[in-house]
C-alpha cells in the first residue's frame, strides 16, 4: 500500500485534535469536518483544511456517511481516521471508505462486523476456549426469552446493546419485575446511540475489576500487546479515572491475559490497534467482555508507560507496514493515570452541564499531558458527548503519578460549566483508590458528593471580589459614567 499523504479525521473534540497531532508529525496533511456548532472548535483551527457538514444533530453531521465520503473526495484524501464513537465501529462505514477507494484506518469491515456485534464475538470466541461471561450469544427477541435466560443464569443480570458500548443501552436488572421496563429503556437508548435496538443478556459479575489489554496487529500477521489499563472507576458504566499498569496484575497474569488478547486478535484476523476488555474477579479469574475495534479514549496512559504513539502505529499499519518492534521490545516504564474531564454536575448525579467556556487554563508541568478539544468561547451543548478533556499524569512510580494527578487537578482552571474535576480529586484522595483494591462498584459504594466546603478566608476572597466586580461593572453602563466618557471622546474628536 502507498504512503498516506492526507487524512480526513471523521470526528470532533479532543480525539480529532489528537489524530491531527500524530498525522502532522508524520508529514501528513489533515482535513477536519465540522457541524455548525463546531465552526471554530480547536480541530477546525488546527487542521490544514476544514469542510462543513451543515447541521447540528449527529445524524446529519458526524454520523452522515454520504456527506463525509463526498468531502473526502473533494479534499482528495488517501485515508479516513474515524477516532472513537460516532462511525468508528460501523462496519458499513469502513466498507464505504474502502469502496470509495480510500484507506480506512482501522480493522477490516468484516472484522468490525464480527467483533462489533458482541453476540457474534462471543460466538466466535466461545469456540476458541476463551473464557466468557455467562449469557446469551444472540440478541434476545422477546420478553419471554429474556425472562427464561435470566432465570437460567440468575439475577443480577446486565442488559447490553449489541451494537456498541460506552454504557449506552446498558441496564443492570436485579429482579424479573424490573425486566420489561429495563429492556424497553435499553432498546430505546441503543437504537438512538447505535441505530440498532438489539440487546443481549449477561450474568452480572459481582465486584470485578475492569481490565483491558491494548493490542497492535499488522497486516503481516504480527500481533503484540501493550499490557493492560485498569478502568474500574466508572459512573453509569462509563470510565472516569484509568490507570496503567493495574495494581492487580502480576507479570505472570499480565502475560497470560496479554496472550489471551493476542489469541483473540488472531482468531478474528484482526489488523490495526484494538482493545480487548475483560472482567477480573477477586480470585483473578478473567472473562472476555468485548473488543473495541478502534482507538480507546484512555489510550494515552498506555502511550505514556510504553513510549509508543498508538495513533502513529495505526497509520503505519494502515499503510501496510510491519510493526517495528516485537513483544520483547516493549517494556513498562513507570505509571500513568488519566482523569476524564466531563462537563457534568459533580454534585448532582453527573447530569450534563451545558454552557459557554469563559475561562480555560489546563495544568502544565513535568509528567502532565492534557488532551482537549475546547477553548475559551466553546459552547458545550446537549448535542454531543460531554467529555471535554483528558488529563494524564506520568510518574516513575504509582505514588508519583497519583501525587502529580492531585496537583494537576487542583491546577486545572475551567469556568462556564461544572466539571468532574472535584469528583476525580475525591477518587485520587480515597484510601481504596490509593491502596489499589477498588473495583467497578467504587462509585456506587463510595461516591459521596464532593465536599464543597470553603473556609473563612475563601469566603472573604469570594465576597470581596464579588462586590468589587459588581461595583466596577455596573459603573461602565451607568448613565452618568457613560456620559462623561462619551463627552470626553467627542471633545477629543472635535479637537482633531
Amino acid at each position, binding site marked *: 500500500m502507498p504512503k498516506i499523504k492526507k487524512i480526513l479525521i471523521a470526528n470532533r473534540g479532543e480525539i480529532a485534535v489528537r489524530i491531527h497531532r500524530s498525522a502532522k508529525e508524520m508529514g501528513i496533511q489533515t482535513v477536519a469536518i465540522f457541524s455548525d456548532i463546531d465552526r471554530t472548535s480547536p480541530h477546525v483551527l488546527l487542521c490544514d483544511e476544514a469542510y462543513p457538514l451543515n447541521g447540528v444533530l449527529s445524524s446529519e453531521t458526524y454520523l452522515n456517511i454520504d456527506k463525509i465520503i463526498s468531502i473526502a473526495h473533494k479534499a482528495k484524501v488517501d485515508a479516513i481516521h474515524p477516532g472513537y464513537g460516532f462511525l468508528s465501529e460501523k462496519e458499513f462505514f469502513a466498507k464505504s471508505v474502502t469502496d470509495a477507494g480510500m484507506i480506512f484506518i482501522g480493522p477490516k469491515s468484516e472484522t468490525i462486523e464480527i467483533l462489533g456485534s458482541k453476540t457474534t464475538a462471543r460466538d466466535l470466541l466461545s469456540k476458541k476456549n476463551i473464557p466468557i461471561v455467562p449469557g446469551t450469544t444472540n440478541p434476545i427477541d422477546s420478553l419471554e426469552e429474556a425472562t427464561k435466560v435470566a432465570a437460567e443464569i440468575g439475577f443480577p443480570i446486565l442488559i447490553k446493546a449489541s451494537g456498541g458500548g460506552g454504557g449506552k443501552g446498558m441496564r443492570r436488572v436485579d429482579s424479573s419485575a424490573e425486566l420489561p421496563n429495563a429492556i424497553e429503556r435499553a432498546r430505546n437508548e441503543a437504537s438512538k446511540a447505535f441505530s440498532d435496538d438489539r440487546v443481549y443478556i449477561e450474568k452480572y459479575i459481582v465486584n470485578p475489576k475492569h481490565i483491558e489489554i491494548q493490542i497492535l496487529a499488522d497486516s503481516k500477521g504480527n500481533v503484540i500487546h501493550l499490557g493492560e489499563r485498569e478502568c474500574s472507576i466508572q459512573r453509569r458504566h462509563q470510565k472516569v479515572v484509568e490507570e496503567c499498569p493495574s495494581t492487580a496484575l502480576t507479570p505472570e497474569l499480565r502475560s497470560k491475559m496479554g496472550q489471551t488478547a493476542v489469541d483473540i486478535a488472531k482468531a478474528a484476523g484482526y489488523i490495526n490497534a484494538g482493545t480487548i476488555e475483560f472482567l477480573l474477579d477477586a480470585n483473578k479469574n478473567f472473562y472476555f467482555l468485548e473488543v473495541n475495534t478502534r482507538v480507546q479514549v484512555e489510550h494515552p496512559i498506555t502511550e505514556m508507560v510504553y513510549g509508543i504513539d498508538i495513533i502513529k502505529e495505526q497509520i503505519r499499519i494502515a499503510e501496510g507496514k510491519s510493526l517495528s518492534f516485537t513483544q520483547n521490545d516493549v517494556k513498562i516504564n513507570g505509571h500513568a493515570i488519566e482523569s476524564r474531564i466531563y462537563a457534568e454536575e459533580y454534585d448532582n448525579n453527573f447530569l450534563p452541564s451545558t454552557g459557554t467556556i469563559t475561562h480555560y487554563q489546563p495544568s502544565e508541568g513535568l509528567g502532565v499531558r492534557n488532551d482537549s478539544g475546547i477553548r475559551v468561547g466553546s459552547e458545550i451543548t446537549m448535542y454531543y458527548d460531554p467529555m471535554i478533556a483528558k488529563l494524564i499524569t506520568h510518574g516513575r512510580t504509582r505514588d508519583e503519578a497519583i501525587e502529580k494527578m492531585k496537583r494537576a487537578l487542583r491546577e486545572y482552571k475551567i469556568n462556564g460549566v461544572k466539571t468532574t474535576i472535584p469528583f476525580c480529586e475525591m477518587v485520587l484522595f480515597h484510601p481504596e483508590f490509593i491502596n489499589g483494591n477498588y473495583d467497578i462498584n467504587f462509585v456506587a459504594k463510595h461516591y459521596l458528593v464532593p465536599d464543597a466546603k470553603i473556609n473563612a478566608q475563601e469566603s472573604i476572597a469570594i465576597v470581596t471580589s464579588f462586590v468589587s466586580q459588581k*461595583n466596577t461593572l455596573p459603573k461602565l453602563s451607568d448613565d452618568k459614567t457613560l456620559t462623561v466618557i462619551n463627552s470626553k471622546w467627542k471633545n477629543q474628536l472635535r479637537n482633531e
Partner: protein
Amino acid sequence: MNRTTINIAEYSFEYDESRGIITNSYGKNVSADVEKISNCEFSVLVDGKSFHIFFSTTQNSPNATVNNFIFEIQKETFRDKLNKKLHKESVNNNSITLRAPMPGLVTKILLLEGTAVNAGDGVLIIEAMKMENEIKSLHSGTIKKIFVQEKQTVEKNDQLFTIE
C-alpha cells in the same frame, strides 16, 4: 437602606454600599487585596493567602468558582427580605413542582395528568447527550399538571410537573 446580605455556603456577610464596607456575621470588617484579571477572573489575597476566583451567572444566579467547586452567591436586600416574609404566608405548600434537572429533549411522558403516583415512580423521560434520564416523582400524590409535551426541548429548571 443600602445594605445587602450576601450568603456564600455557610458564611454570611453584610455589605453597606454607601460606605463600601463589608462585615462578617460577627460584625467585623473584612478586607482583601482584590485584583481584577478579566470580567470573570480575580486574584484575591486574604492575609497573604492567594485565591483564584471565577464568576459566572449560570442558572440565572451568580456563582463563584474556587478550585473547580462552584458556590452560589445569594444576595438579599432589605426589601427582598420583607417581600419574602410577606410572600411566605400566602404560599400554598400542598403542591410540589418538579423542575428539569438538566437541559434536554422530553422523549416520553409516562403518566397522564390526574394519575396517582408513588414516590420513585417515573413520570417522564428527558434525553440529553444521548442518555435517557427517567425523571421520577420525589413525592406520592396525584399529578396535577404536566407543563411539557413530548418532543419539547426544556432548559434546566423549567417546570416539568406538579404533584399534589
